[in-house]
């Protein structure tokens, strides 16, 4: 779209704010045990308040109720929605989004409040409007707009059952979305920690780690230890080096709990720490076996080489008292 076309598109979209979608639209089926059983089975919900008439009889309510979470289901369109939804303000607005490339759809938030527990035989009526449409946003799924519908549900006596605010993202699917999918196996392989690339100067260290040893590089000319590894000694400029195996004992110099973002393949909670090894070099690792509130700068830690996932062997450090 040119900027002018986009402006025109936005004018059309925003004209839907406040539009009525449904007015006292009755659900085609009254609240009934068959559809509830189907729903409860799918969800694994064994709540007897929905299905066990004998239990319900002697309960505080004295009757069965429909699952509150089903409130909106009674009025959902059904199978025609898979091909061509019936025309209403919401469908027409979504069509307009689709025509302009915003074909992706994702429910992002739903908020329901319940005022009355509807029971078997009650009929649900819905009133709905399009309440808000956001400005254009960049989201993880793609560029798009959030819209919110606001619905009120009533029974056949006109009594309010509840309300619902539903937030949906209409977005332009990322380019090449199809082609990025190679196979199910690949897409759903359990993620592992992001490994370090291995080059001339560091590969040997990671290979030793794979074998369960934490090494520290040592200059063979002046015996100075150094970490991270480098090709030359900064003290004496010698390029000759070997390594020693760390005792993996040390002291915490600092730590931080990583709350955000959560990255697939990493545990939660996750604490990272700078540890002063007894050998004298500092090392960044994870602090395990305690919560952040129990960690402190200066605490003694003891490390082990650990297989943290299918592919990764890493030094991991624990409060020293636990090890002893």
């Amino acid at each position, binding site marked *: 779209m040119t900027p002018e076309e986009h402006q025109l598109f936005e004018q059309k979209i925003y004209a839907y704010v406040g539009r009525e979608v449904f007015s006292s639209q009755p659900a085609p089926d009254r609240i009934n045990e068959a559809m509830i059983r189907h729903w409860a089975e799918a969800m694994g*919900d064994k709540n*007897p308040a929905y299905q066990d008439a004998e239990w319900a009889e002697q309960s505080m309510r004295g009757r069965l109720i429909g699952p509150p979470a089903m409130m909106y289901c009674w009025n959902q369109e059904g199978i025609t929605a898979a091909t061509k939804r019936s025309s209403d303000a919401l469908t027409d607005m979504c069509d307009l989004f689709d025509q302009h490339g915003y074909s*992706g759809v994702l*429910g992002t938030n739903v908020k329901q*409040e*319940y005022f009355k527990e509807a029971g078997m035989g009650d009929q649900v009526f819905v009133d709905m409007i399009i309440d808000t449409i956001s400005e254009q946003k960049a989201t993880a799924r793609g560029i798009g707009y959030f819209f919110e519908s606001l619905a009120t549900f009533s029974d056949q006596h006109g009594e309010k059952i509840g309300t619902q605010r539903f937030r949906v993202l209409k977005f332009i699917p990322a380019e090449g*979305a199809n082609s990025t999918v190679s196979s199910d196996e690949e897409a759903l392989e359990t993620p592992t920690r992001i490994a370090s690339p291995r080059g001339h100067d560091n590969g040997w260290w990671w290979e030793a780690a794979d074998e369960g040893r934490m090494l520290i590089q040592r200059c063979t000319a002046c015996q100075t230890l150094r970490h991270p590894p480098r090709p030359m000694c900064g003290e004496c400029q010698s390029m000759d080096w070997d390594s020693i195996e760390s005792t993996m004992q040390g002291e915490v110099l600092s730590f931080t709990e990583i709350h955000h973002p959560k990255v697939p393949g990493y545990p939660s909670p996750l604490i990272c720490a700078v540890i002063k090894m007894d050998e004298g070099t500092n090392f960044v690792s994870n602090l395990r076996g305690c919560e952040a509130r129990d960690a402190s700068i200066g605490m003694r830690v003891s490390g082990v080489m650990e297989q943290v996932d299918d592919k990764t062997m890493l030094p991991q450090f624990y409060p020293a008292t636990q090890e002893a």
Partner: protein
Amino acid sequence: MTDFKTIRIDEVSVGDALAALDIEVTTALVVGGAIATRDYEPVHHNKAAAQAAGLPDVFMNILTSQALMTRFATDWSGPEASVRSIDLQLGAPNLPGMVMTVTGEITAVDSKTGIVDIAINGENNIWGMHMHGTVQLKLPGED
């Protein structure tokens, strides 16, 4: 008839954790959940449509997530509790093959009205946070 116990308001304190629940996300759950909530959006039952939207497979619809969150709360409370509200935000999609771990913690207790707020998280083992939100229940036994 099985005997079901419902937790009373005086048994609950802020900070109480709910026992975690692992839910295996299968194609049957994704598709069955979508149809049981009468949501026929193609992305929830048609893999090609889901792939066109940028995901490798069909993914769980929000009304199933909502149902699972509510179920988690009432599994804990017992059947005499009334659900007052649910406020749910979705994160990463739930796809077949994943396992979603649902956890919860009591964040508010009002012994006068019997109302408790439960903060609930559902994290899947592949992409992390799938849903988080609050379910509000009214428990029996108020003052």
